[in-house]
């Protein structure tokens, strides 16, 4: 146990944003961290990484692929007809209708000629940066299990989320900010709540920290007004003094010294986190690029711009949930698809494209992996006359930046967009690919829990090689 003899300086350097207690140290035996090492210290990937950070844009409720990235002319040709030849069509809420054409037109874009609908005019200009997977499949046609699967790899809530796995694998480059940040839609969070960004059975150091897009970014980041910074500094100094006297009697106890250090980090976080989300420090042109200050893009624009600022400062994983709350507030277009997707696409299109432009101009796109996904797609047949029901049998997700081969289309769905038929991909495959871009081997990134070495990808998953540049 040589680490018990670290110099104080070394110890404090290592202590960082959190340390492993003995219990955790035991779990980590044979893994990458030793007791006393910061849980969030930067750790080398398994192999050289393409990406250093991830921004996930999660369209909660389920985006319709046949209205956005997977054109199906057959739906117009056969509008109103029954969808045949597909066995029993399983819908989540009953009363399946006939085939329903998309109200939006598709056209080809970029050098790659990728088809994108008119719902995403700005993103369409970026297709040569995008690798589109049209053959995703997932297990559940129910929101919560599907969300949990997309975010944690398992349909039961309570497993560590993708962001947790990544910060566990790589640590973070800025100890003064949370390693894993989550923005919810101001109208409400996704169904299933905190387990979507939970640490599961891992230490709390790896849980996602919810950020607000207005006011103080983190709950409890700042004390109430009457507690002035001077007053706070004064008692923190007293705390440090008493704690140091206590530590002097137990000089080898790294948990005690790490806890002392955690207060200094927290104190610094108060200014650093506030600064990280201070959009006044951006130029008017940059803010305009994201659609900040105009409707309907302001809220997503702010979050996307904050995401860039966070990634720039070394944050490892940022997740933005678009859609929340109930009914049309999320992407869950059971009825009035035109209103629903019209609104959500208008809210997100410009900010997403702006984020890509901005990252690229700052040389950050290569090292930042963007994932655009939801928990499932939507049905090619109608529901409630003008909506679409949930569809986990075939849907689209895309990735960009972070060593992704732009202009790529992987797999396809059948003639209607009902089910993936060619080159089917699973959520495990998607997760394996995300980890791969970060230099992590999904089969080696494990955490022991109740007698098993658990993985983000459970017992399957293959890297989607076609999208890797």
């Amino acid at each position, binding site marked *: 146990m040589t680490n018990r003899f670290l110099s104080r300086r070394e110890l404090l350097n290592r202590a960082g944003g959190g340390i492993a207690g*003995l219990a955790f140290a035991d779990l980590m035996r044979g893994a990458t961290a030793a007791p006393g090492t910061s849980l969030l210290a930067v750790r080398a990937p398994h192999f050289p990484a393409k990406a250093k950070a991830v921004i996930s844009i999660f369209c909660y409720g389920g985006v319709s692929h046949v209205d956005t990235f997977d054109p199906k002319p057959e739906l117009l040709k056969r509008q109103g007809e029954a969808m045949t030849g597909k066995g029993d069509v399983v819908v989540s809420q009953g009363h399946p209708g006939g085939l329903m054409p998309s109200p939006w037109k598709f056209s080809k874009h970029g050098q790659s000629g990728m088809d994108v609908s008119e719902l995403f005019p700005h993103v369409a200009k970026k297709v040569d940066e995008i690798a589109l997977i049209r053959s995703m499949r997932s297990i559940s046609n129910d929101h919560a299990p599907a969300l949990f699967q997309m975010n944690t790899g398992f349909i039961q809530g309570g497993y560590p989320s993708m962001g947790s796995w990544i910060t566990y694998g790589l640590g973070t480059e800025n100890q003064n900010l949370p390693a894993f940040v989550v923005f919810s839609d101001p109208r409400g969070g996704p169904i299933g709540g905190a387990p979507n960004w939970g640490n599961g059975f891992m230490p709390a150091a790896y849980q996602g920290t919810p950020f607000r897009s207005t006011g103080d970014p983190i709950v409890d980041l700042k004390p109430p007004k009457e507690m002035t910074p001077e007053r706070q500094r004064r008692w923190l100094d007293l705390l440090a003094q008493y704690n140091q006297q206590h530590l002097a009697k137990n000089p080898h106890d790294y948990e005690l010294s790490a806890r002392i250090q955690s207060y200094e980090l927290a104190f610094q976080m108060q200014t650093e986190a506030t600064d990280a989300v201070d959009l006044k420090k951006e130029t008017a042109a940059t803010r305009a690029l994201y659609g900040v200050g105009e409707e309907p893009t302001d809220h997503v624009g702010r979050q996307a711009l904050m995401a860039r600022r966070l990634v720039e400062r070394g944050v490892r994983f940022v997740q933005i949930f678009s859609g929340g709350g109930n009914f049309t507030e999320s992407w869950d277009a059971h009825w009035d698809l035109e209103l629903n997707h019209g609104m959500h696409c208008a809210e997100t299109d410009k900010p997403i494209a702006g984020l890509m432009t901005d990252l690229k101009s700052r040389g950050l796109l290569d090292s930042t992996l963007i994932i655009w996904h939801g928990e499932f797609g939507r049905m090619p047949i109608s529901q409630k006359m003008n909506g679409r029901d949930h569809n986990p049998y075939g849907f689209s997700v895309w990735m960009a930046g972070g060593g992704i081969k732009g202009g790529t289309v992987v797999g396809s769905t059948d003639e209607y967009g009902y089910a993936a038929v060619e080159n089917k991909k699973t959520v495990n495959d998607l997760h394996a690919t995300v980890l791969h871009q970060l230099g992590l081997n999904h089969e080696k990134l494990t955490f022991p829990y109740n007698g098993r070495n658990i993985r983000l990808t459970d017992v399957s998953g293959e890297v989607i090689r076609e999208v890797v540049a």
Partner: protein
Amino acid sequence: MLPLRTFTLLVAPLFAVQLFASDLADDAALVLQHNCTGCHGADKQMGNLDLRSLESALEGGERGLAVEPGKSADSRLYKFIAGIEKPLMPPGKRLPAEDIEIIRKWIDDGAKVNSKEKSEAKPQEKAPVINTKMEERTITPEDRRYWAFVAPVRAPLPQVSTANPVDAFILATLRAKKLKPAGPADRRTLIRRAYLDLTGLPPTPANVQAFLDDGSPNAFPKVVEQLLASPHYGERWGRHWLDTVRYSDSGGFEYDRDRDTAWRYRDYVIKAFNDDKPYNQFVQEQIAGDEIAPKSYEGRIATGYLRLGLENNLKNEQTRMDDLDDLVATTSNAFLGLTVGCARCHNHKFDPIAQKDYYRMQAVFFSTKATEYPLVNEEEVKRFNAEQAHITELQVPWKAKLTEIEKPYKEKLIADKKSKLPEYVLVALKTPADKRTEGQKLNAEQVEKTLTADQKEILAAMPEADVQRHKQVSKEIADLDEQRPKPLPTAMAIAEKGREAVPSYFLYRGSPGSKGSLMKPGVIAAAIQGEWQFPEPPADATTTWRRSGLASWIAGAENPLTARVMVNRIWQHHFGEGIVRTPNNFGKMGERPTHPELLDWLATEFVQQHWSIKAIHRLIMNSETYQRASDDVAANLEIDGENRYFWRMPRQRLEAEGIRDSMMAVAGNLDLKVGGSAVHPYIDPALFQSSSKRTWVGKPDTDPETWRRGVYIFSKRSIPLPMLDVFDKPDSVGSCARRNRSTIAPQALILMNNSFVLMEAKMFADRLRREAGDDVTAQANLAFQLALSRPPSHSESETAFKFIRGDAQGLVDFCQTMLNLNEFVYIP
């Protein structure tokens, strides 16, 4: 049985097979491979028919085609398995209905073979013969010789000069390893340790003084007795058990429904610890309380254990299997320290636990269903049901009236909406029903079934007079609802259909679509010689008695695991680490005990002491090992820096609840009421952003109702209380044997800035002024006594004086400092 109909929530397996096009072929192939290839497969192909792949099935056999694509009624394959034509196939064994249905659908859908696979592989390569049989696993004598499967043996005590057996074993090892034990802890440390350890609350200055003043040799044993007799003992140690069984007050998944009666199980656990209920009885009640103590409400409440898992809002055969899997895994983790869950899809990779063990254990629980068991007599249930029915009846005319008021407006709204539908839908609606195409039928039906107007729209369309009428009638209905009887007190419990078990099967890869042989109940083969005899249920039994069979094996004195696993848990909660450091896994991938003889000695002692948990506490706490200082011994650091051999008492950070509880105890506002329904402290809405089905109605910090111990805080899976969550309160997805103990900046942020903590600092300051008067030195002195169980040193006191006098808010800030100290949050 009481008339339970209104309460029974049936969770019986529903045979809803999810089918979709691209998987139909795969499913059909699996049905054939699992059921037919014994006679029509690699070894033999009776009738020259090969059913290893869909292609070969389509080729038929010596009697011609077995499959007529598109026509199941003409397909011999279907007619034979469906029993329409003889012989029934497979011979003597009718396939499950959903398997037959898969084949019918596959044939009627054109008997398509997955095109991609067809082009890629020849039939022989494509269709590996899947063995529907369980993987064989013979238990060898060597398997049974693995330490954890051998009954604990009580070794003679090592010859060291000590009376306490714990010390004898510990000291013998320390000597052998050339480790020097730390000196005894001072008395203030000792009493603070004992209080925090047993009750999770710091001692009061009076408690400390009484102990210091007691010069008798049994002063400490007396403290231990007092604490074991305290109702707050069960609150801390019951919480440890609640972690082990993944207790939560909500069901998780989409709705994360509140379990408003779960707290009765929580209180049962706390009471069991307080009463020192024999552990073997505690085990049996949780698994089979309804069978062994049918008349006792407590027995029923105890079976809440079987209901603690996640609740999927989708109920089908697959989700039912997942629920059972969770139960098998948790039961084996919690009671046996085994990872039986690993054997769902294959034999355990490291331990001698076969798939057979898994499915035998699953068979034990297979017949269970959820029930809300009324905790009142039959008469009261009848009265309740009658009152409910009466009010429902009184509401009928009012509801009819409401419908009548709404009717014209609703119809008009619907008509308006209809007129705006797309042309092709309008055409469908205009087409006479018998002339509609398939698509038109679907669309017309969809309009009829789903086109509606909601009440908001209807009210908006009404003139004021009708809105008023509508209001009046709605009020009548609401008033009647008010008169409904209060819900009966119920327990979240378990029932079964009857004494006959619901048949359960081996499932290939855990999938309900691939059934193998019928399973009988059983126990872990490697941990027993011969077969365990499950009892025959009594003639009037309402359950299969399989659970009591399993429970009596687990709780039997001969079980090699149960006592070891529990004494190890007790040891671990005292010392931070177990003798086996993987408390939920005594298998080969777990750790070996650091002190095997001590573990066995404690296990045998536990059984001899009638499974008394408190007896083990006494034994441990009255040892020198427990009473040592937590200071380092420099000479030991090189040999055992990790303190695996317990040469000193490890310092342990209080768990999440302990930190919050201690703050309130010190500030003087902790409500020490024991038990009852859970409380909802304030959570910033930005952290949960509720939806209609999932919300948190938090009370303000200042509401004394929330000043209860952490174990009474409503534990909602999707909305964790940040202060507990950030300090590693476990997610309750699976059994948590040992909490993580991380140290991170967000913990500091909460203790620095959270409004509750600031309120506690103010209350603490008020208490100091109240009890110590205006003298600053006296205030600081009392603060140290309350928060740290000791007076301040001279220099600490001087520092405190200067600090408090140096600012108008000096005392409050000083109090917040105290609540943030390392010394405050660590058990010394």
